């Protein structure tokens, strides 16, 4: 530990109106180090980031940047010290060109009043060359892919002499290929002496990219060290404080007659000639990279998209699923991948979110709601799924990610469900709730539900399914038995790279 750390925080404490967010947290990052900050929702990691970047002031503690000590920072100071944060939404301007997105920040920092396009172009060109990106500077950013937008955010950060780049869950919307590209960029930055603070809860990434880690739980630092010495079980233990057994799903009582039968389903530009059967009691995992067509496939089963050709049969009967309502009536439920925008009505009550799809059933003639029935249903499912909420009238946005996901699940379980599709069942859900949801899925399947999960979380796929279908470029490339499969096999099949 000869070199001065680029960032060191000691004894950081912060409370908000009586709620303690951080208690005496310490962390240090050396120059050129890739450090992972991990923790569940509520662990305090976002608060810590905001303190480091100057958005908040700590109640106590010291922030030391390259040897200079501060009791707190302002955002401008943090930027001047070389600390840059890349938020999950990248903070880009979709309506402006790449060039402007890259140049505006530095122009503003230099207190420019007049826009000089020639200078902006120079700045932008310099930025993209640094990263090694080949892109049309005049293209509107809204037309770019998520990964490109992220690269723009990173290039922009570099323009301001960053010494430490903090990335908040950078891989959540990226395909495996793009994640690899991002990691290459990160390694390149490392060779230039930059440090990266990588906030993530995905263990594989923690292992793959970072050298050291710090784990927060309930506002305290519970572990730190080199990632080389860490293993999955210990990681999960530190994150949640609980021990987890490695479970697998062994399907019993598989129904004889397939409850869902798909034959040669094709949708141009998404998937082609998809055929498979699903029986009660099975959990089939469809895995593949983002873009393999898996979301389009399940959304077709749910009535959001319409196939160009092919057949879908539910319980032996051929069916044209022309809209979501038809799908629901056929007993299909769908937990979408983007919970916040597609799954929930955030400011509305837990109860409303829960009963939204069964209002038909719970209303009398003329459409009058049967209030008692609604309240009973809500109470029942809150108890069944152990949803942690004091009152079903509270807005659902007050719940944690895991509990929110449970509300969405409850919504479907309350319908007349035979087939449940979950896209990214534990995305953005903390490890504790993740295992809860896995156990729940296994229990539901054992009780006769047919489940399809779409996931690229390979351990999740292996732990929860009775059958795996690997999808690549719109087709199923292989069907596997999870008991005989390893993560690396899945990874190779998904990417097509041996």
């Amino acid at each position, binding site marked *: 530990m000869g070199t001065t750390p680029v960032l060191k925080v000691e004894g950081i404490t912060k409370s908000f109106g009586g709620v303690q967010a951080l208690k005496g947290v310490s962390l240090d990052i050396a120059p050129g180090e890739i450090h992972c900050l991990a923790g569940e929702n509520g662990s305090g990691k976002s608060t810590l980031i905001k303190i480091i970047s100057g958005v908040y002031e700590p109640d106590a503690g010291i922030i030391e940047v390259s040897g200079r000590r501060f009791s707190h920072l302002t955002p401008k100071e943090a930027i001047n010290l070389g600390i840059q944060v890349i938020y999950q939404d990248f903070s880009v301007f979709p309506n*402006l060109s790449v060039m402007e997105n890259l140049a505006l920040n530095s122009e503003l920092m230099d207190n420019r*009043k*007049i*826009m000089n396009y020639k200078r902006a172009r120079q700045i932008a060109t310099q930025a993209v060359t640094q990263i090694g990106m080949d892109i049309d500077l005049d293209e509107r950013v*809204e037309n770019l*892919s998520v*990964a490109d937008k992220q690269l723009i955010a990173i290039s922009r950060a570099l323009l301001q002499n960053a010494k430490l780049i903090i990335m908040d869950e950078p891989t959540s919307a990226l395909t495996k*290929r793009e994640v690899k590209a991002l990691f290459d960029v990160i390694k390149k930055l490392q060779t230039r002496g930059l440090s990266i603070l990588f906030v993530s809860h995905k263990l594989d990434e923690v292992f793959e990219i970072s050298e050291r880690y710090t784990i927060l739980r309930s506002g305290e630092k519970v572990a730190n060290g080199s990632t080389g010495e860490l293993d999955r079980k210990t990681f999960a233990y530190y994150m949640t404080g609980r021990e987890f057994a490695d479970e697998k799903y062994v399907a019993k009582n598989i129904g004889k007659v397939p409850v869902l039968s798909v034959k040669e389903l094709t949708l141009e530009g998404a998937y082609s000639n998809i055929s498979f059967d699903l029986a009660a009691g099975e959990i089939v995992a469809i895995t593949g990279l983002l873009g393999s067509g898996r979301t389009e496939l399940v959304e077709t089963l749910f009535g959001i998209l319409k196939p160009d050709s092919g057949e879908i049969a539910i319980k032996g009967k051929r069916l044209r699923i022309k809209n979501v309502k038809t799908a629901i009536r056929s007993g299909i439920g769908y937990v979408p991948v983007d919970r916040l925008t597609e799954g929930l009505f955030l400011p509305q009550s837990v109860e409303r979110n829960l009963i939204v799809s069964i209002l038909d059933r719970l209303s009398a003639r003329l459409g009058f709601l049967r209030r008692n029935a609604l309240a009973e249903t809500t109470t029942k499912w809150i108890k069944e799924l152990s949803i942690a909420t004091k009152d079903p009238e509270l807005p659902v946005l007050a719940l944690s990610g895991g509990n929110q996901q449970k509300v969405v699940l409850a919504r479907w379980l309350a319908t007349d469900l035979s087939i449940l599709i979950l896209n990214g069942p534990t995305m953005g859900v903390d490890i504790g709730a993740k295992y809860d949801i896995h156990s729940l899925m296994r229990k539901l399947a054992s009780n006769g539900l047919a489940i399809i999960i779409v996931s690229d979380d390979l351990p999740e796929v292996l732990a929860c399914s009775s059958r795996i279908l690997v999808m690549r470029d719109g087709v199923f490339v292989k069907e596997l038995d999870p008991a005989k499969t390893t993560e690396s096999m899945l990874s190779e099949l998904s990417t097509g790279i041996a």
Partner: protein
Amino acid sequence: MISLRRMTKRSEPYVFAVIVALSLLIQARSGQFFSGNNLVDLTRSLIVPAMFSIGCMMVIVSGGIDVSFPAIASLAMFVTDKVLLASNYSGNVLLAYAMSAGLGLLMGALNGFLIGFLRLPTLVVTLGTSSLYTGLMYGAFAASASDVPPSIANHGKEILFTATNASTGLTSNMPIHIFILIGALILAFFILRYTMLGRGIYAIGGDEIAAERAGFNVRGIKMFLYSFVGLLAGITGIVRISMMSYADPSTMLSMDMTVIAAVVLGGTRVTGGVGTLIGTVLGITLMTMLSNSLILIGIPTYWARAFTGAVIIIGTGVTAHQTFSSRRRRSQMQKAKA
């Protein structure tokens, strides 16, 4: 640098095409459209709405919507008129412009404060201030149609040139106010394109949070924006009454919706972040053509409003369809790339 492909995605070329088509149609039916005097009349009619549309467009680009500009223009011009009449003012018309502009600026600044600092929703705030200002005008100032001071009237008579229609012998005068419009357009263009303030307006319209994070002074920019709209409105008020040589407080009040419709027809997105002055001018031209020139293709004036409504509906329908399908194309492209 503007590829042909990118051109087809924008609305401005379509509006232009519609204008051309409409003018040819009118010309065919009446032979009068391209006559000098008709074109001058047309230009004369669009000066006031066009001046309104500049500020209106800037607000919509920033992601907001302002319906109070006619009320600001009316109140500012009315107070100015009354004060100058009462003091028997006979000096230069510039004072009238300055006064009205100043009053407009203050009124707009109230919007800027409520929207920029208190972050209240734009439509409702401007509805409120519109009501406030209209009420003040009719209530506190007991506004009614009145004359204008001589300098304003004389100013109104200043003309750039006269155009004569060869066949009908009718003449139309191009008012000097066209320079004010051109000046305002140039100023707005410069601000929007070449100042950080202007780029900030686009940035805020694109993603306000990102703009804040990038270091834009969002509150200050909004304050400037709405004050600027007020200033322009005040100037427009004087332009109006001098062109008419008559101060009627109610004439501008119904313009809010047609100006907004014109701005949107011209390609400015209601959601913000996208829009050009050229498109706005095209939109205003189209709307003005519709209200003025329909009589030339035999649509009686009584049906003009219905016709305008239909055009707004069709125009916004097409724009909405464009945004919709380009969004779908974009997400498909993104999926394909991944």
